[in-house]
């Protein structure tokens, strides 16, 4: 028990990095996904195709590969060859990847709204922005809540991939402690940390789903 208490401060430090990546990714990837989804259903064929290809590549290759590519590979690319620090590189890779997933979720949500909703709004004189903001998006949010909840919980666990960039997130901190102390207790504590984070998210999403269920 004393041992556990003694390692908790360090593990909390690691958790801070994990949470930082998590929140920044969520805050950037969701708007990116919404933007991409609108491109994906736009009447511009070229735009639609470009975004479709983007989504295809980002969902069809491992996030780990994308992470390594952004960190180690980008500097070698002519012209744009920039070298990012580990944390910005991780954020970039995660946002691009999760943006693609959120794009597909939003697209499916948008397309699930019956055409009659758009038509009713139009006959009431609402313009595109009003229709989206007041009629369509609230209904889309309800539909996409379960898949977004899934993705978000997956993201908590995926943050551990930044381990390969030698950043001291929760997982790497844990492994360092295990190696230093020859004790596997940190693994158990790390599992509990991840579980608590997932639990809080699940609880939050359940609340949201209840809130949205008031109209059916």
């Amino acid at each position: 028990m004393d041992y556990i208490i003694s390692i908790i401060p360090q593990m909390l430090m690691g958790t801070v990095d994990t949470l930082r990546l998590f929140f920044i990714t969520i805050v950037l990837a969701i708007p990116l996904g919404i933007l991409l989804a609108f491109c994906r259903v736009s009447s511009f064929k070229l735009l639609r195709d470009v975004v479709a290809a983007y989504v295809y590549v980002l969902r069809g290759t491992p996030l780990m590969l994308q992470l390594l590519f952004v960190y180690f590979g980008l500097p070698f690319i002519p012209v744009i060859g920039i070298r990012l620090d580990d944390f910005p590189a991780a954020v970039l890779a995660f946002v691009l990847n999760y943006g693609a997933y959120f794009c597909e979720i939003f697209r499916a949500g948008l397309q699930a709204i019956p055409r009659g909703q758009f038509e009713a709004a139009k006959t009431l004189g609402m313009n595109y922005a009003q229709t989206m903001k007041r009629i369509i998006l609230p209904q889309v949010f309800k539909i996409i809540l379960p898949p977004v909840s899934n993705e978000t919980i997956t993201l908590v666990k995926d943050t551990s991939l930044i381990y390969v960039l030698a950043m001291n997130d929760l997982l790497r901190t844990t492994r360092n402690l295990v190696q230093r102390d020859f004790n596997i207790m940190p693994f158990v504590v790390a599992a509990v940390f991840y579980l608590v984070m997932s639990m809080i998210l699940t609880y939050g999403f359940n609340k949201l789903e209840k809130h949205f269920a008031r109209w059916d």
Partner: protein
Amino acid sequence: MRKIEAKSICKKFDDLEVLKSIDMTVDEGEVVAIIGPSGGGKSTFLRCLNKLETINGGTIIIDGETLVSTDENGNVRYADNSSRIACRMGMVFQQFNLFPHMTVLENLMEAPVHVQKRNPAEVQKEAEALLEKVGLLDKRDQYPLRLSGGQQQRVAIARALCMKPDIMLFDEPTSSLDPELTGEVLKTMRNLAEDHMTMVVVTHEMGFAREVATKVLFMADGYIQEQGTPEEVFGNPKNERLKSFLKSILK
């Protein structure tokens, strides 16, 4: 006064010519019923009137203002303010299309407050009066999906009326209702007609067309095949398509 004037309306979906040349005039306070076989273009015509579909030829004048016109060379031109003209017509759909995430009262108030920018307190009063009129004031804080089909459709009618439209368009308003629920919706529409609302109603309810309409149009194959008073159209049909249509539907 002339409320709707539609001349030589033509509408194609790719190669499918759904409306070949449709003419219709509606005067203030008239109730026009459009009947005809399914697939004949009735919905499409109604949707052309309020710009849910864009036409390929013809002219539409609403309340003296040109919504869309076609020049000698066949170029179709919509007025710059066509959207504003179009939403002077309230529309009631077969599938109700209420906004499920808003209460009944919010459904009614949404567009008057956010589109017409009217005073919310006044709009609320009018909305409540309209709900009272369609017999649903006690449902004002319910969400639409909790209501029966007939109640939803009456809310949809009240929602359209809350915009203070000059004209009401109905596209088979009772076709997705159980038979025992059509009566309440038809009664609401009857009351509206008695209040001298100008109405265009696509319907399979021949009883309603016969008793309430001032004019009946029979549409098939992209044309108005016959039109006249209910007595003429139902009592003494001339067109062969109309005769067989009436026979099939009254069986």
